């Protein structure tokens, strides 16, 4: 049944991803009334699917990449809903919802078969470690999208006459969030992600130290994670103190996001995250 709920969720996310385009790009409020409820229903079925999977398997952790991606998709869809409620904007859905569909479509139609012999000790801490780090990834992605939207809005405000037909920018009448709003969202999501990442890494380190011992520091994923945390801190410092916005903010966010992807990919080389001795 859990797979069925996940497929329903994917379908609903797909509807929301399509409906958000006319709502955000052509100011069609009717489509907003489809996009938001569809995403909300998608989140509900997605959550039910995850709970059912974990309950049926008598575990509390995602055991393969597909499941982890599915969790991340849920967080991104929830972030879309949070923004739609708080800032009355669905523009972020242009990016967030298709990514959510991509993240959930694979586990919905090709469930993973990886099995990780993870220790059943300290499961609660591991759940927290994973959830916090996924929230940090989601926040980082959101910040990147906000920076991109800032860039689009800035460019079309500077271009002034985008209706020439040669421009790739949406027309000036299109209701994107105001520059200050996107800037605030970018910064707030980074500020939300920082404690998540810090706490997630700390919990992971303590659990690894107790389970594997000091050798876990030599693990490539652990090293990359620490590097990413430093980059994350640096990015927040620069953004807060120099008021970095626009193009350069996009470059910086993209660089840190690529770092985050590298950390994710480092799972392939990580013994700690496969619960093998390094």
């Amino acid at each position, binding site marked *: 049944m859990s797979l069925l709920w996940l497929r329903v969720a994917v379908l609903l996310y797909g509807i929301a991803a399509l409906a958000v385009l006319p709502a955000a790009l052509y100011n069609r409020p*009717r489509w907003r009334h489809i996009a938001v409820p569809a995403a909300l229903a998608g989140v509900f079925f997605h959550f039910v699917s995850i709970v059912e999977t974990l309950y049926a398997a008598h575990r509390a952790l995602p055991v393969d990449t597909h499941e982890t991606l599915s969790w991340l998709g849920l967080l991104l869809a929830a972030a879309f809903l949070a923004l739609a409620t708080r800032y009355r904007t669905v523009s972020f859905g242009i990016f967030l919802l298709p990514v959510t569909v991509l993240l959930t479509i694979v586990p919905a139609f090709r469930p993973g078969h990886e099995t990780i012999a993870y220790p059943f000790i300290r499961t609660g801490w591991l759940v927290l470690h994973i959830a916090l780090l996924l929230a940090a990834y989601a926040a980082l992605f959101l910040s990147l999208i906000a920076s991109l939207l800032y860039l689009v809005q800035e460019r079309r*405000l500077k271009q*002034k006459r985008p209706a020439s037909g040669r421009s790739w920018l949406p027309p000036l009448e299109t209701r994107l969030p105001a520059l*200050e709003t996107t800037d605030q969202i970018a910064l707030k999501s980074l500020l939300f992600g920082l404690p998540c990442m810090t706490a997630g890494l700390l919990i992971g380190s303590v659990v690894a130290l107790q389970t594997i011992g000091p050798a876990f520091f030599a693990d490539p994923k652990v090293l990359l994670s620490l590097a990413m945390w430093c980059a994350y801190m640096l990015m927040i410092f620069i953004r807060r103190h120099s008021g970095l*916005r626009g193009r350069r903010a996009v470059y910086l966010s993209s660089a840190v996001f690529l770092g985050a992807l590298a950390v994710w990919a480092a799972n392939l080389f990580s013994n700690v995250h496969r619960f093998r001795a390094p």
Partner: protein
Amino acid sequence: MNSDMPETHLQSGILLLGVNHTTAPLEVRERLAIHPSRLADATRTLAHQPGIREALILSTCNRVELLTVHEAPHTGSAPQLGMLRFLHEYLNLPPDEIRPHVYEFREREAIRHLFRVASSLDSMVVGEPQILGQVKQSWSVAREVGAIRSQLAPVLLESSNSIEAFSSVGAYSSVGAFSSVLDPLLQRAFSVAKRVRTETRIGANSVSIASVAAELARKIFGSLSGKTVLLVGAGKMSDLTARHLIQQGANTLLVSNRTEARAEKIADALRTPAITTGVIPFDQLHEQSHRADIILTSTGAAATGEQPHVFTTHHARTLLQRRRNRPVFFIDIAVPRDVSPEINKLEGCFVYDMDDLQQVAAQHQAVRSREAEAAESIVNREVARYNQRLSQAPAVEAIKQLQSSAEAVRLHELARTAHRLAAQPLSPEQQAAVEALTRSLTAKLLHSQLTALREAASDAPAADPDE
């Protein structure tokens, strides 16, 4: 004004007389305009004219319209003359002077015109939102003075197609008490206007220079609450734009002018309890301009030959540094320009001059024109629906009459039978059985006639929505 309505069924007629910005020059409109404080009295006076059942006066800066319902539908000029006489007597204007500018709509066309006016399709600036409020205000005044009866309106508004709905409205009923025509009509006009506003983007974008500037500021800053506006120079347009920005939430206003006394005067004029104002001496303009989020310039005096603009790229860079790259919006409505166009290339600086603002306003106007076509279709469909309901009303009334006559006969026969059986009265159970029998008989006997009438009501001619 031809009408497709089945007027033979009508016992009252709608007539609308008016002038607007397209038919009358300002000199005529200002003489016809009725001040809001006199609107109640004028509406009452109009409603008391002979033959007028209900009346409403809409008086705005661009139009004066008299909407009336007469005792019987007229195709002649009697009601028109009555309304012109009202204008003559109330406003002391000779009818001959007004007549060339007056337009007249009857019945269906009057309904269409009202829907178009309420939806802002007949406004000078198509899509402007004020007109709906003004129509509502006139409606409210007319109800207060009894020129419009408020009753049973919600029944029609519920869009019910049921026979009962129409019979209770009875707007054009040939029998029964007088019920309101204008009240449901106006409420329908409000819902049509709401539909137009929700389903089209007719009012989505501003079209005046001042409001375009304020809208652009909102695209940069979101809410303008807590924002600071710096007014450099003085002028009517900059004053208007500053007022728009204040209206949108900006709460600090700084003024800088070559003549400090003039700056003080402007600041005083714009100061309110909610607005903080201040004056920046012109020679300190560049040192202090970083305090402002929006800089509105209108000095109109080119600077020295070496510095052809009041704000150059160098000034803007310094300003951005002091603001730690927080965005700044230059609205340059001066000719020649005060702000170097090169500043727009700096990240965080947005420069809009008069041409840019006019260009945006023109784009918005084009969008509104496109949306107006969609809005006209909505209005046409709504007029057709409304007319169809009105044309069904006589059949509904006939059904009511038939039912009540049959009920009267049934009750009369029951009473006669009860009188005959007075010696041996029926038991309660027998009485109930006889009651049910007579009801059933009446219903069966009426069935075919009622069905025919109901079919006639639902097949009543509907107007072509596209005409």
